[in-house]
């Protein structure tokens, strides 16, 4: 079994993984970081989006072994010293979730969009969230939240 070393939410991790383990499985079952949700398991819903070396990827479409040496951030790594990330605050303030299942992936993708596109506008938010499915809210409040969160991130 490959032994991999990586950084997860700032903490060094060494793990003995089976080649067939998905990164989502390492995070959830081995490291107990169950904030990363597995919604569809067919790589379409985006609930499992995390950041690998700063970029959003679907952790159910990447092998754990491929994360050797990577810097990983999950939804648990966003809040700092008990204070929610501005994007998390925006989701809460704008009622951008109902059941909450898609929310970790939505927030992780939205943080990446706002980081990569400082001038993020609404069409770009809609395009950027194409790979994140919500089956409750109808998206409008999510879009509203991302616009507010992106503005807060710009300071």
């Amino acid at each position, binding site marked *: 079994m490959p032994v991999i070393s990586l950084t997860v939410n700032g903490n060094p991790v060494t793990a003995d993984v089976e080649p067939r383990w998905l990164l989502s499985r390492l995070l959830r079952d081995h490291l107990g970081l169950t904030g990363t949700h597995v919604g569809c398991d067919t790589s379409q819903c985006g609930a499992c989006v995390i950041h690998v070396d700063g*970029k959003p990827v*679907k952790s159910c*479409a990447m092998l754990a072994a491929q994360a050797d040496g990577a810097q990983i951030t999950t939804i648990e790594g966003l809040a700092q010293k008990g204070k929610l990330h501005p994007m998390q605050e925006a989701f809460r303030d704008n009622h951008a979730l109902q059941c909450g299942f898609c929310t970790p992936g939505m927030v992780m993708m939205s943080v990446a969009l706002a980081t990569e596109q400082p001038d993020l506008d609404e069409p770009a938010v809609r395009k950027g969230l194409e*790979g994140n499915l919500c089956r409750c809210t109808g998206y409008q409040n999510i879009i509203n939240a991302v616009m507010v969160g992106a503005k807060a991130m710009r300071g």
Partner: protein
Amino acid sequence: MYEFEYHQPKSLEEATKLFADADDPQFMAGGQTIIPVMKQRLAMPSDIIDLGKISDLQGISVDGGALTIGAMTHHNEVAGSDEVRKAIPALAELASHIGDPAVRNRGTIGGSIANNDPAADYPAALVALGATVQTTSREIAAEDFFTAMFETALDEGEMIVNVTFPAPEKAAYEKFPNPASRYATTGVFVAKTGESVRVAVTGAGACVFRQIDFEKALLGDFSPSALDGLTVSTDGLNSDLHASAEYRANLISVLAKRAVKHAG
């Protein structure tokens, strides 16, 4: 997923040897198709040979009028590359609409064309632009590369190293995406280079193909109206729950006109 051995070679030579020594090996590029396929237990390779750490497969370069993209270049890198945007903006635009942002951060041009999904975007660009696929053993013209549904001219153990695109005078890609997958229900890439016009269609048939009658009409008059009155045969076009063959035939006309207009 069935069990397999995982390898992460650092060179093409090492990858070639690993492939030769394994029972039923599978190369993996970005993994955005093979991992879901393995999860569904539709494939059970004995060995996965991950090409992600081979530096020879990385990078984008421009030499004269030609753009070369390494096989392991991610879609987001192509979409965001100043070199691509300058040389062939239509190609950057195409890459920016593949899948979704998370898929584009992992998926690669080499993986996409080696898989030759009939609804993938890149095959249309390669055929319309007259690209050349450099493999570990030879150069293959794009038209000879895509042979049938999910099939290419690649031999066992042969790897794509890079793809070279001659820069066209004008080009554009238009697609009608499946709203769930963003794969092309139908996509049309139009390219004009000197005295040649090529129209390549993806998503409509079993494999990318050229719409020769459109090319002839556009050669004399590169404008959307040049395609007025031309109808597309439904022979060989896909008919499925997403669209009938008739619908796809109409999309080919509509998207080709939009692409010509967009190309300017």
